[in-house]
Each structure stands twice: as structure tokens, then as C-alpha cells.
């Protein structure tokens, strides 16, 4: 692998903890500013930030798999959709209260991830990407085909929220708190021996195997963790929109969190969060001007990938370094 040296350099960079304390204070300030959003901004702006928060968790969970584990999956939307559909289906068929669905959602997504991961991880590289893509289309078709179970392409809408989440401020704060907890847990997982093993496998699979690492189990665990948090993001989407629909599941939906990570910088932990905000704000802004939003997505992707042939993440870590120097 030609990129090996570069990737390894990046991973050692991620393990080092310079100015951890500063980063901690910085995160707290960002959290407090975000918590104040519904009191300082219009409802419309608050909803944009809310949507970005949901997307940020989805992007973080996807980037955990793509960057830390080095597993390029084009099917993470399956778990995002599963999270949303768990709440929707439980309400539609069982009239289960929101809380039950919300708690179950990430676990159901994790179980689905366990099955898909166990089957997909037998394949490597391109075949892995295509297999996850295939599963994603399978679930997408399932959600459209079985109308009586999922209401087909209209999806399940009008999913009721409990009283305490009905007003926009409380639902916003709920999403912010759950999203932050998810972020903290993902950040912590990266730093555990498990997280380090994961990066070791990514950097040199053969050597890790020789050291006695069970590559398959570790990667499967990473796949399940990513699925769990994608599912949690899907559950948060219900708090934001009260609607589960098939387009949440298809492969374009799986590309979006990867794109967000690239936009914000895959190499850094906060990159996907930044990317989710950039993407969401761009979407709202461009979306009101023109209906050709996909054209802009395409141009953004191309612009990024082409202007930085070494990979967008490198450029962004450069920007980040500059930014660190300034801050």
C-alpha cells in the first residue's frame, strides 16, 4: 500500500494528546453555545442546527468505521434508517410509547449491524464496499415493497412524541444532550485499547494478525458500534422530524455522512461534526435558491477530491493545524 506511511503518520497523530485540557474547555464552550441556540436564534435557525446535530452523530459514527477501522462502507444508512423505523414500526403496529422505541432503536440497529457485518466482513476492500451497498439496497427495497408493514414509499409519518419533547426547545436540548453523550462515548472508544487495536489492523492487517489479534472479531465489533450510533442518530431524527421513510436507507443516504466527514476532515475527530454543519447549512442555503441541490453536492465532492489529490483529509488537517496555531 502506497498510502500506508501516510495513514500511519495520521494515526500516531490521533493518539497523541497535546493540549487535551484546552480541547476539553473548548468543547465545553461549544456545547454551551449550542445549548443556547434556541434562546438566541429564530425557530427556523434552531431547526437547521438541530438537523445538523443529528447529521453530526450519523457522520461521526460512519467516520468511526471508515477512518478508524479503515472499512469503507457504503451502507451505513441502513442502520440510520433502522433506528428511525424501529420507533416508527413499534408505534404503528403496537402503539408502543416513544421511550421504548427510542431505547430499543440503537440496539436493533446494532443487531442488524452484527448480521450485516458478519456477512460483509468476509469480503475485503471493493467487495466489502459493494456488499454493504447491496445490503443497503436490499433494505431500501424491502421498505418500499412491503407496504402493509412499512407504508411503502410514503413512510411512517406523524410519529407522536411524548409531551416533554413536544416543544421545540426541549426537543432541541434532548437531541443536543443525547448527541453529545454519543459523541463522548465514541471519542472514548477511540482511546481505549480496542480503538488502538482497530487502527493497528487498519494500518497493517498481517502484522496485527501475527501479534495474535482476532481481526475479524475486532472489525465486527467496530461495525456493530458504528451501527449502534448510526441507529441512535436515526432515532434522534424521529425527535427532529417524526417521519421514517425509505430514502433514509438508500445508498445516496450512505454517501452523505462520508461526504460530511470529508468536508470537515476525516483525520480529526471533530471533522465530521464540522462537516455536518457545513453540509446542512449549505443545503438549506442552496436548497432555497435552486432545486438542483444534487448538482452542488456533486460539485462540492469533485472540488474537494480534485483540489487536494493527496486526499481532502490532509488539506483539512493542514487547515486545522493553522487554526490550532491561531487559537
Amino acid at each position, binding site marked *: 500500500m*502506497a498510502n500506508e506511511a501516510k495513514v500511519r503518520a495520521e494515526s500516531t497523530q490521533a493518539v497523541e494528546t497535546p493540549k487535551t485540557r484546552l480541547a476539553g474547555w473548548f468543547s465545553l464552550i461549544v456545547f454551551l453555545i449550542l445549548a443556547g441556540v434556541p434562546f438566541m436564534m429564530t425557530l427556523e435557525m434552531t431547526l437547521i442546527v438541530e438537523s445538523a446535530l443529528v447529521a453530526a452523530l450519523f457522520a461521526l459514527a460512519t467516520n468511526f468505521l471508515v477512518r478508524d477501522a479503515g472499512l469503507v462502507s457504503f451502507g451505513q444508512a441502513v442502520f440510520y434508517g433502522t433506528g428511525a423505523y424501529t420507533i416508527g414500526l413499534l408505534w404503528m403496529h403496537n402503539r408502543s410509547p416513544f421511550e421504548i422505541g427510542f431505547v430499543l432503536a440503537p440496539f436493533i440497529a446494532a443487531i442488524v449491524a452484527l448480521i450485516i457485518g458478519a456477512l460483509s466482513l*468476509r469480503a475485503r476492500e471493493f467487495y466489502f464496499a459493494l456488499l454493504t451497498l447491496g445490503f443497503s439496497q436490499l433494505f431500501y427495497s*424491502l421498505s418500499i415493497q412491503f407496504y402493509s408493514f412499512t407504508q411503502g414509499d410514503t413512510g411512517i409519518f406523524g410519529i407522536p412524541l411524548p409531551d416533554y419533547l413536544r416543544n421545540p426547545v426541549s426537543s432541541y436540548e434532548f437531541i443536543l444532550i443525547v448527541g453529545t453523550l454519543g459523541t463522548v462515548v465514541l471519542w472514548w472508544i477511540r482511546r481505549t485499547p480496542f480503538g488502538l487495536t482497530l487502527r493497528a489492523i487498519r494500518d497493517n492487517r498481517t502484522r496485527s494478525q501475527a501479534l495474535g489479534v482476532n481481526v475479524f472479531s475486532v472489525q465486527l465489533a467496530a461495525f456493530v458500534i458504528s451501527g449502534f450510533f448510526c441507529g441512535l442518530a436515526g432515532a434522534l431524527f424521529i425527535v427532529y422530524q417524526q417521519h421514517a421513510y425509505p430514502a433514509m436507507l438508500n445508498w445516496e443516504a450512505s*454517501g452523505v455522512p462520508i461526504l460530511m466527514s470529508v468536508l470537515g476532515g476525516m483525520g480529526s475527530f471533530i471533522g465530521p461534526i464540522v462537516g455536518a454543519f457545513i453540509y446542512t447549512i449549505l443545503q438549506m442555503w442552496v436548497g432555497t435558491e435552486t432545486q438542483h441541490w444534487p*448538482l452542488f453536492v456533486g460539485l*462540492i465532492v*469533485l472540488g474537494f477530491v480534485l483540489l487536494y489529490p493527496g*486526499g481532502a483529509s490532509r488539506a483539512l488537517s493542514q487547515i486545522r493545524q493553522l487554526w490550532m496555531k491561531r487559537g
Partner: protein
Amino acid sequence: MVSILTGLSTAAILFIVSAGLSLVFGTMRIINMAHGTFYMIGAYLVTLAFAGLTMRATGFVIALILAAVLVSVLGIVIEMFVLRRLYQSEHLFQLLATWGLMLVLEEVTLIVWGPNNVTGSIPGGLSGSFAIGGQSFPFYNAFLIGAALVIAALLWLLLKFTPLGRIIRAAVQDTELIYTLGVNVKRLYTQVFALGTFLAALGGALVAPSTSLGPGMDAQIVMEAFIVSVIGGLGSIWGTALGALVIGLFQSLGNLIAPEVAALAPYLVMILVLIIRPTGIFGKAEA
């Protein structure tokens, strides 16, 4: 009987499109997500831009070739200005770039020709149907099967007997090898990508008269082409032919027996094959 033939005509189109995808992957190791969009542009060109030509069978054949050539010129431009800069970067960025291309090209197609679905018409001389076993079978579907056979034969000749074919086969066997052979890799990649887009557009142009064109058709076909190439083993032409047959037959027979499941069949077949053989039927293990 007729549904088997229908399956064969579906397989014919799938084969032509997937062969292009598979050749590009086999030689260049690029998964081209925009492949379906070249198919879509081919179909739109034949239906809308060359509408006058497509009234008669001979004009239609000219329109087919014109459309495929035009799209392969577009392919060359894209290879030279976009893909060429990505061969050294990670797979993920290559995937993202072709995905970006797909989004851009699809939107531009829809801006040029409008977002409404359009229906083509089968040229005179190729319309009508004939009877087989008491049921009627459209003549055009038989034409598609014939076209696929001709293209398969031409591809076989190209790969077996031309210098370009030899290099492509070497590249499929061992991608690194071609760098040591003194081959002009730049030119090779351009040629292969042009061939790939030519085949995609030809598939789209062939299917245009008998179907309705609209947004999303590119995502649909590119998924099916992925499945076909993956089942057969990326880079293998014979695998692609086999994969196309399996998917084509599954779809048409599935439609007869259980229409709900038929839509899922391709994905199920792909997952099944990859679980048994993670690199496809004729695929070799990743180095």
C-alpha cells in the same frame, strides 16, 4: 418460454452495461459510480436528440453508434480531467469522485432534457412481435439478444487478438504488472475508460426505445451492473455474462412467480454469492 426469452433480453442489456463497468474496474481498479449516468445519457441522446434518425431501423443503428461515440468522447474528457488525478489517491476518494460525477452528470442531463419521464418508440422494422410456443414475443427483445451476442463476440475478439486486448488482460491479471511492461498507462486508461463509457451508452441507447426514461434510471442500472459484475467477479468478462444471465433470468422468472420478491432477488443473489465466494464466481482473491 417467453419469460425465459424476456429474461435473456434483460440479461443482454445488463451484460453490455456491466461489461463496461467490469473492464474499467479490472484494468483501472476504479469503481465507477457514474457508469449508470453514461447509460442514461446514451438513452436520452437516442430518444431526444436523434429522434428524427430513429424512425427506421438503419437510422436507429446509426443513432446508437453516434450516441455511444459521443458519450465515450465525454468519457475521455472526464478521464483526462478528473479521474487521471485520482489514480494515486485512496479508493474512498475515487469512489466519492465518481459519485460526485454521477450527481453532476445526472442533474445536467435533467437540466438539458427536463425532469419529466419520456418514452421512446421502437423504430419501424424492429417493431412487432412473433409467436413462440403459442405466446407472442416482441421482435425488439430478440434484436437486443442478437445485439448482445454481437457485442460479446466483438469484445472477445478485441480482448483476444488486439494489442490493446492483451494489455487489458494483463492488467486484469495483475494491475501492478503493466507499470513494468513499458506500456503507456495513461493512454491505456483513457482507452479503457472510453470503451467502458461506450458500452454503458450503447446499453442505454439500445434500451431507450422500449422503456421510459427518467430521473433515477442511472442509479437503478448502476446498482444492477454492480451486482452483475460482483457476482461474476470484477474484471471477468465471462463472469459478467454469467452474472447478467443469472440476474436477468431471476428477474423475469421472479416477476412471474412472486413480483414482490423479484425486486429483491438481485440483492439476495449477490449477497448469497459473495458469502459463498467473497470475490465473485470468476474473481481472483485481492492481492
